[in-house]
């Protein structure tokens, strides 16, 4: 397909693209949230007199007066339904007022009294509450084991046994989680909401407020990023809808950036032990990968940290395991490649350590351990081109000239190093519905409740529909971002394009024969549930190779990354322009993970201290120099009609390990705890 410029690009560069709380509605009021100031406890009383005395305050909502709403499986959405405080920063009250200024000031005046208990917020291996979850996100077994991993490891000629930690990280999309709620005269609810799945959000909102799904509409044509954190509704949706009902007016509520560190999910911190045993040639005999993570007392979210280890390398003896501690913290959730991202930092760092221990080039080591089939399930891979990615990447990056000796290249006061890591991400595809319609004027309209959170979904689906219709993309309009459109899966798990695209193709295919009747408008629809249920069982995964070059300042511990390169095998790339942007974007986030991103838990008070963008460092423009991404020619007929694998997440997977491995190559120092800040580096130097 020829690359297509982002369809909504013009709207975005002129400021016309509207995001959630930007819709003009008559008589709008503003809400502000009050957050718990204790880490665990019970609300004794909510003092609202001072807030209500402010001119312009319309209502104050809390556990003392909030309407009862239905419970759903995410307890974070049971807003004001209980006196229990589960973590510091939890929303405990809300104010609705005529203006934003008044709402926020009134929220400051709401007085909540608590009986408080000391919060338990520190994740550590000795935590008495550690347990094995029944399964990990979304439906994987918590543990797997084959052979005799302990015995094989003990008997291995070359061994790596290391513990790696990754901190809590916050998604931090640039658009805060925000909702504009409008109740109509008949009790129907329209929510202009920033989310990654209008259909799912609609169902959840309908359930919470006891409405038929047809009484709720979610409007989300433009979403300012989510990276997983908008994959499910957040408390802002419930708060806005509740406030709008209480005030009898439309209500806007956007979480403040500070609130986003409590109420939008985050990547769980992990403590991971990896043991790799190999023979003298580097052939793995044992792989053991165990992860400890946290969840809240509100809800179990068990991240699938070690699942990539189940597909990466061949070894006869192996075990993966997940353990969880439930703490008085906000509930962690999805953040770009949950599981794969922290898991592959540990595994790919350990592979680098094994390469050093065995005296084998890290790329060669990975090639030697390439499996013929999925190592644990035994399923055939639908396609697997990791080796091609590694080899092409090595050529492009200039790996051949790399002296394997660490700390051997110095320029002035800087040490230079190069690192590599593998990447992988599953190729998911979920059932979807779509319609395709031939209009009287010869154009086509494709409808699906998909959502474009910056991924280029609108553009990719246009290309997919145009190809299926054998029409020019200019004649195809894709409507998405609205729950009134045919039901669609969430923009998550890198499965959007695959799942939505399948339905779009099927709808277009159904439309094509109808066009011969020369009767317009005419519409066809598709539901891919049966097709996806019937697909053969295969191991479907994308793979990639990540390369990084680093400069480490020996005096200051500052690390700069002059070059990063990713080469990916992702089936067929639908739109080269937006795909490259997605890969580079993921790698940029991986750079942040490697060097700066860290949500620091306040162990005394029990909340994340790094709660704004001055304290939680995302990469800035100056941090990113030369990052580029390529993809190999991969034809996989076992995926979907487009032949594509998802690309939204694999860019971050392995990126941090590539940087950390480069730091080791530059300095000889193995940093196993992210992020690799000047403080960590200096302490090690």
């Amino acid at each position, binding site marked *: 397909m020829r690359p297509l410029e982002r369809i909504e690009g013009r709207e975005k560069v002129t400021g016309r693209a509207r995001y959630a709380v930007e819709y003009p509605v008559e008589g709008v009021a503003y809400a502000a949230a009050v957050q718990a100031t204790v880490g665990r406890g019970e609300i004794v009383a909510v003092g609202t007199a001072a807030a209500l005395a402010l001119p312009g305050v319309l209502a104050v909502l809390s556990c003392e007066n909030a309407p009862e709403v239905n419970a759903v499986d995410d307890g974070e959405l049971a807003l004001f339904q209980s006196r229990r405080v589960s973590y510091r920063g939890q929303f405990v009250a809300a104010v609705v007022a005529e203006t934003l200024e008044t709402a*926020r000031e009134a929220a400051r005046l709401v007085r909540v009294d608590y009986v408080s208990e000391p919060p338990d917020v520190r994740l550590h291996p000795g935590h008495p509450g550690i347990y094995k979850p029944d399964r990990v996100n979304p439906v994987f077994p918590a543990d797997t084991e084959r052979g005799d991993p302990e015995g094989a490891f003990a008997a291995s000629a070359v061994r790596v046994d290391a513990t790696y930690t990754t901190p809590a990280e916050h998604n931090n999309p640039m658009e805060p989680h925000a909702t504009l709620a409008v109740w109509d005269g008949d009790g129907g609810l329209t929510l202009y909401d920033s989310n990654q799945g209008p259909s799912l959000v609609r169902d959840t909102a309908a359930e919470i407020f006891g409405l038929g799904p047809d009484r709720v509409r979610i409007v989300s044509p433009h979403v300012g990023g989510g990276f997983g954190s908008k994959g499910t509704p957040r408390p802002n949706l419930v708060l806005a809808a509740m406030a709008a009902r209480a005030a009898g007016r439309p209500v806007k509520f956007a979480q403040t950036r500070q609130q986003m560190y409590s109420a939008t999910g985050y990547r769980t911190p992990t403590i991971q032990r990896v043991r790799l045993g190999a023979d003298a040639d580097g052939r793995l005999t044992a792989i053991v990968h165990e992860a400890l993570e946290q969840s809240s007392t509100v809800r179990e979210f068990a991240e699938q940290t070690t699942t990539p280890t189940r597909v990466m390398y061949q070894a006869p003896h192996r075990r993966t395991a997940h353990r969880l501690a439930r703490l008085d913290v906000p509930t962690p959730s999805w953040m770009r490649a949950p599981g794969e991202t922290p898991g592959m930092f540990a595994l790919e760092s350990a592979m680098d350590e094994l390469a050093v221990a065995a005296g084998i080039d890290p790329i060669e080591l990975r090639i030697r351990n390439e499996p013929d089939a999925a190592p644990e399930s035994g399923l055939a891979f639908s396609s697997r081109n990791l080796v091609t990615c590694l080899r092409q990447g090595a050529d492009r990056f200039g790996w051949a000239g790399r002296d394997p000796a660490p700390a051997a290249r110095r320029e002035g006061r800087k040490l230079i190093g190069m690192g590599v890591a593998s990447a992988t991400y599953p190729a998911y595809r979920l059932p979807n519905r779509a319609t395709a319609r031939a209009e009287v004027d010869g154009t086509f309209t494709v409808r699906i409740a998909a959502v474009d959170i910056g991924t280029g979904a609108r553009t990719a689906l246009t290309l997919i529909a145009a190809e299926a219709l054998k029409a020019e993309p200019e004649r195809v309009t894709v409507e998405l971002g609205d729950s009134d459109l045919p039901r669609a899966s969430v923009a998550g798990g890198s499965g959007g394009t695959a799942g939505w695209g399948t339905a779009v193709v099927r709808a277009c295919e159904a439309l094509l024969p109808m066009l011969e009747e020369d009767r317009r408008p005419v519409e066809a629809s598709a539901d891919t549930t049966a097709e996806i249920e019937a697909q053969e069982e295969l191991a479907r995964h994308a793979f990639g190779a990540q390369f990084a070059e680093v400069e480490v300042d020996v005096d200051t511990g500052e690390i700069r990354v002059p070059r990063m390169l990713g080469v990916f095998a992702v089936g067929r790339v639908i739109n080269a322009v937006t795909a490259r942007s997605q890969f580079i974007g993921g790698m940029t986030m991986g750079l942040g993970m490697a060097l700066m991103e860290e949500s620091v838990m306040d162990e005394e008070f029990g909340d994340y201290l790094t709660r704004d963008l001055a304290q939680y460092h995302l990469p800035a423009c100056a941090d990113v120099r030369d990052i580029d991404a390529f993809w190999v020619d991969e034809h996989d007929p076992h995926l979907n009609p487009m032949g594509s694998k998802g690309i939204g997440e694999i860019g971050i997977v392995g990126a941090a390990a590539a940087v950390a491995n480069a730091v080791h190559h530059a300095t000889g120092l193995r940093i196993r705890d992210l992020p690799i800040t000047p403080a960590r580096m200096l302490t090690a130097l």
Partner: protein
Amino acid sequence: MRPFAYERAGTAEEALAKHDDDALYLGGGTNLVDLMRLGVATPARLVDVAHLPCDRIERGADGGLVIGAAVRNSDLAADPAARRSHPLLVEAVLTGASGQIRNQATVGGNLLQRTRCSYFQDITKPCNKREPGSGCPAREGEHHNHAIFGHSAACVATHPSDMAVALAALDASVRVRGRGGGERAVPLGELYRRPGEDPSRDTALEPGDLITAVEVPPLGLPSRYRKVRERASFAFALVSVAVALDVEGGAAGGGTVRDCRIALGGVAHLPWRAHRAEAVLRGAPATAESFLRAAEAELEAAEPLRDNRYKVPLATNLIARTLTELTER
């Protein structure tokens, strides 16, 4: 944000007259509006001093600068005379914040910005600086970017300004007008306080005192500002250093240090003038060894906290390295 009255002052006299104990002066607002939105600052009145006529940079016959307090940070950094005569000052300003914020922030406001300690900025937690007597959770809590010099049991916060570090090295002083009338000069070295038992006061200024200008003596020496932070731009310093060096017979030749100025940022409640290092260095040969010895002499007095010990080698290396680079130019 608490409601407040707003008044714009056209002259310093007017500003002083409008100020009372419930008022705060508003410059560019880049820190004050931020703090008001957080509920940390709750003035009943703002007296806008961003439009006072003290908005020019004057160059004295001796090569010194008089920088009006209402001069925007970006105008200072763009000033052709300042760029030639006081590069370390311009470099310091340019490493601060972002282009947008430098366009808004005034020189006077920059000097009076408050610490970015996360406890100070969160009104739901104790902080002696914000609420005297409430305690300092940073001492035992999160303090990886807190002070290693001059802190007290009551406060371990650092001063966030880059510009102030350069001004400290330059022996600058501020012109201050008080409610009592009259103008006085306060040397930078006396402007800022150590936290002691009362960290609520950052400076020696009295309520209502208005900074009208910064006087910067001539420099005439090679100088440099270097800042280390956790990302490549748009972040506060972990440690920064402002240095100027006068070497007899030229820096390149390994002559004798006649004079030097060294100030550190990110290490104390105030810009930290490294007097011990300077004393060691004066009269010593201008070599990397001397520079390191001088830096070590300064850092010997450091009292790092549990999680900011890294600042000791960082500051040591940064002083030595920056001085060395000055001699290599």
